[in-house]
């Protein structure tokens, strides 16, 4: 019943536009220093402007993969390229500007005393100062509808607001690709929808790591399943979710009563 790992809407299939893909992972393998191998040759290409869901059971290596995208972890074998630039030590500053990771807990992401300073942290680290910095910060906050909260300390915000500010902190770096780790976790339904509305309006490539399958279906036309350290499936999200055998094999389960066939979904 298993589906072979075929790069369904792959860049090769699309007419080549001459633009380097936002993300190009090939043959990526990694073992932790304690010997535990987490990735066994991951191949994944995300074209510019695509929104892709990265699905997979706990322990499949999702977080390990994400930490390779901006060079926090060094690839044991294989390569990662972001918009054509290889992830290597000498490129790290530029890579980290291009890859915006939004971590799961906004309290980890927002470490500065005020929202404004937090959003400014990335661009200021890259050397932006003065009016240009201010402009960048306000533009990022505006994109997530949080510009009125600029002077507030993060712990005075609701969880949903903090998540949105966390998105703004990486948007301020004008990234090539936005990587979201469990963006819908701990959000109430209203905040969840607000975040989805914001993500849809962003003109940026998105890789979304999630267990929330309806959310993946709602936002990402394409999904990949990472299982046991390899990409086990790569297809339209709706087709993946409808393949019950594949889903069961990789410990993926839809919420009770949810039928992925019953909803209208975005098509690539």
């Amino acid at each position, binding site marked *: 019943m298993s589906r072979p790992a075929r790069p369904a809407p792959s860049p090769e299939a699309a007419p080549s536009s001459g633009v380097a893909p936002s993300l190009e992972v090939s043959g990526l393998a990694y073992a932790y220093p304690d010997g535990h191998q987490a990735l066994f040759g991951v191949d994944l290409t995300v074209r510019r402007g695509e929104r892709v869901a990265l699905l997979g059971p706990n322990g499949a290596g999702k977080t390990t993969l994400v930490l390779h995208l901006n060079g926090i972890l060094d690839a044991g074998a294989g390569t990662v390229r972001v918009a054509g630039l290889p992830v290597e030590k000498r490129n790290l500053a530029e890579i980290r*500007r291009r890859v915006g990771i939004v*971590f799961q807990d906004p*309290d980890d992401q927002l470490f*500065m*005393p*005020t929202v404004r300073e937090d959003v400014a942290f990335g661009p200021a680290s890259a050397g932006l100062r003065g009016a240009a910095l201010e402009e960048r910060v306000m533009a990022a906050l505006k994109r997530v509808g949080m510009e009125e909260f600029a002077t507030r*300390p993060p712990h005075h915000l609701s969880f949903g607001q903090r998540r949105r500010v966390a998105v703004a902190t990486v948007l301020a770096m004008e990234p090539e690709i936005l990587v979201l780790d469990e963006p819908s976790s701990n959000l109430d339904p209203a905040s969840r929808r607000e975040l989805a509305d914001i993500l849809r309006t962003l003109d940026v490539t998105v890789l979304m790591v999630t267990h929330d399958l309806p959310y993946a279906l709602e936002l990402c036309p394409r999904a990949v399943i990472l299982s046991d350290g390899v990409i086990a499936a790569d297809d339209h999200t709706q087709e993946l979710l409808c393949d019950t055998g594949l889903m069961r094999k990789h410990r993926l389960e839809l919420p009770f009563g949810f039928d992925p066939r019953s909803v209208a979904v975005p098509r690539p």
Partner: protein
Amino acid sequence: MGAGHAHRLYRHGHSPVHRLPPHCKLVAVLGFVVVVVSTPREALWAFALYAVLLAAVAAVARVPAGFLLKRLAIEVPFVAFALLMPFVVPGEQTELLGLTVSVPGLWGAWNVLAKGTLGVAASVLLASTTELRSLLLGLQRLRLPPLLVQIASFMLRYGDVITDELRRMSIARRSRGFEARGVRHWGVLAKTAGALFIRSYERGERVHLAMVSRGYTGTMPVIDEVTASRAQWAYACALPVLALGVCLLGWTV
């Protein structure tokens, strides 16, 4: 809201003292305290003048006397120590309100009490007119080692987060019928402290990861430049300079 980081010592306002750049105020308070400490304790009138100077600053800053006096309570442990001195310091004895006390002890107590109170009052004035956040910016501007400033600003950001974690752990303990009663339960509390330490440590690692992901390479980027004009410096230094005059008089008279 939008008032930034409010803390209990801070009193929101728009007085000229509030508006002074934080590093000017820090230098002024430090200068004032040094001058006060170097004044001879026998010059009683000098300390009265210092108090008048501080009262003038408080008036300009529109900090009410009651507010200031209440915040002075932090000094109480030192006062207790000062009150002991007349009884324990050896030396010439004298009668005061029917008690036998030592003269050097009395002078010592007066010295600690007067200088301590003035120092605390100046610091309270600084804290009530300057937000914590700006104080940190001021310290950064004054070239305090950046690591110390970073540690202090993370305390500012994560103090509430950690307190909240501690509160949740306490609720979890009590929900399972635990009530800390006496020495036998200290072990449980110690384990809570240990768990909190590990949680904070792990959070520290995650925060560091988030910082590195956004380009952190060991130094905090400059986001808010605090600058002071010559006039602002002059205004801030009025307090320590006047105090210095008083101090010099105290040594010569």
